[in-house]
């Protein structure tokens, strides 16, 4: 039986985010760009401040009290993130700088050790550049083949030719949630098909983990990449989850301090996983902040987060269509149950930059551009779209502000 999660108290949540008290151009800040980066609750800011004020020292080195505390906080953050995504153990979570470094870790370590000329990597047409360019680069360097699963006209990935595309593949790289369309590809089904074809599966969950209950084992994936700053955490920290045996079999990515067991004049041996992949001083305060972000999200409950963002998306899709009808083109699946809280749109033939410039004057922050998904933009036949995206601190009044501000753009350009 499905339990309906309690509704979020957005008025109270807004108070936890100091930046939302800010005004621009004398207007209330209406932040609708969380897909680019979320805002941070006070709890995260205070956790980092407290860490620097009371505990900071380098980790995994000192024997003195604060160094031990810093190490404990850093490793507790790893354990917390691991629990949050349903990982089997904390050692399966490698901290990186962001999602991009996580996908590149797979490309540089696993792929360069395991793939060669003619080996097939499959990506999709809706990938963010972070999960596409590494595979183009690998092709250039190693002579691998890159095949692409296309977007169908209904805003979903076209799966009719899935078996052919996957035949003989060594890796499937797929997003769990499109940062442009909000599309939620059937990751489990894709992963099962990829495994049946003998391929490993890398899931880009940068737009998933902040907004949905996450269980890496239900993805059925081998690698999952995500990023802290989109999930209420600080910039400068992301993570790669991977099955432990896989991590153990992989060569290090960056090398130097921290990742080492022993170094002699003529060689070195590596540390255990996951530290083998964390060369140099890691983002310690950022890990502390990310742990506080996870606490914040868990206190709300990810099912409640998803339910809130889904109903807000439904409201926004309805309001935009009701006000602007045929003048607005909304990309991606029409059904809010089938998409994340991300709405990319075009309005008449007004350029996305002009839309977002006018919206800015109303205090409304939306993204304009290609959203680091140029292959997808080409497929949609546009050079840029405007994009509004939602988080826990958005409510219907924010959507109303968006709808109203589009009218101002119409007055100027329409």
């Amino acid at each position, binding site marked *: 039986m499905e339990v309906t999660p309690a509704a979020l108290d957005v008025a109270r949540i807004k108070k936890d985010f100091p930046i939302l008290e800010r005004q*621009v*151009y004398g207007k209330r800040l209406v932040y609708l760009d969380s897909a680019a980066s979320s805002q941070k609750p006070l709890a995260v800011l205070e956790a980092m401040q407290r860490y620097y004020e009371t505990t900071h020292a380098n980790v995994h080195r000192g024997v003195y009290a604060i160094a031990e505390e810093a190490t404990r906080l850093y490793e507790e953050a790893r354990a917390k993130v691991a629990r949050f995504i349903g990982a089997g153990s904390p050692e399966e979570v490698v901290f990186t700088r962001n999602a991009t470094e996580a996908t590149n870790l797979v490309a540089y370590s696993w792929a360069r050790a395991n793939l060669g000329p003619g080996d097939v990597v499959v990506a999709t047409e809706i990938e963010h550049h972070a999960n596409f360019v590494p595979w183009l680069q690998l092709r250039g360097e190693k002579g691998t083949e890159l095949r692409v699963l296309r977007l169908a006209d209904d805003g979903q990935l076209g799966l009719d030719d899935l078996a052919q595309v996957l035949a003989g593949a060594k890796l499937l790289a797929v997003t769990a949630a499109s940062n442009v369309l909000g599309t939620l590809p059937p990751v489990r089904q894709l992963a099962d098909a990829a495994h049946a074809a003998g391929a490993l599966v890398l899931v880009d969950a940068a737009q998933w983990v902040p907004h949905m209950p996450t269980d890496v084992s239900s993805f059925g994936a081998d690698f999952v990449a995500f990023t802290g700053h989109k999930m209420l955490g600080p910039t400068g920290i992301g993570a790669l989850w991977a099955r432990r045996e896989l991590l153990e079999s992989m060569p290090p990515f960056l090398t130097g301090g921290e990742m080492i067991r022993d170094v002699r004049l003529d060689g070195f041996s590596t540390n255990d996983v996951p530290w083998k992949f964390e060369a140099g001083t890691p983002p310690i305060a950022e890990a502390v902040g990310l742990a506080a972000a996870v606490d914040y999200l868990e206190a709300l409950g990810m099912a409640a987060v998803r339910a809130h963002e889904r109903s807000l998306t439904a409201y926004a899709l309805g309001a935009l269509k009701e006000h602007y009808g045929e003048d607005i083109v909304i990309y991606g699946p029409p059904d809010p149950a089938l998409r994340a809280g991300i709405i990319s749109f075009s309005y008449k033939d007004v*350029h*996305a*930059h*002009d839309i977002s*410039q*006018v919206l800015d*004057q109303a205090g409304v922050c939306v993204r*304009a*551009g*290609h959203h680091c998904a*140029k292959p997808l*933009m080409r497929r949609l036949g546009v*050079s*840029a779209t405007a994009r509004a995206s939602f988080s826990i601190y958005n409510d219907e009044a924010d959507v109303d502000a968006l709808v109203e501000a589009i009218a101002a753009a119409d007055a*100027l*350009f329409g």
Partner: protein
Amino acid sequence: MPGLEDLYREIILDHYRNPRNRGELPSPPAVRTEGFNPLCGDEVVVYLKLADGVIADLKISGQGCSISQSSASMMSAAVKGKTTAEARATIRAFRSMMSLHEQQLDAPPAGASLEGNGADDVAAEGQPGDQGVPLGDLEALQGVVKFPVRIKCATLCWHTLAQALDEAEATAAGP
């Protein structure tokens, strides 16, 4: 904070809605040069035909925001029929109008208004603009510099024109 009226001046909107010299020219004989703004995906194509050191014809195609489109339209009107030397002087004048303000945005002198100060500096270099080149309608684009992320939208077509002139003159000098 700057307002929309600083950016979207009436004359800019007019050029955006009714772009001048829009279209293509057969190439060759015209030189065809593409410009790209990788940040926003704006794209401009300049078709340039020289005759005896004069811009005999010039057409613009491509796609972009109101600022990039109107800048291209105004540019085409400003340089068509001019000698290549005059066109290059206009390019320099336009670029200096854009960069002058860019520097001031980085370090605004205490108490000085951007406008007042900018006018003085321009005057020092020979108002209006570089080497006495009248920028005319193009001065309407001055407001863009208050919106630093949009400066590249305004300058894209000018970089492309400079490149087209280089190519056309290299071709004319030919083997």
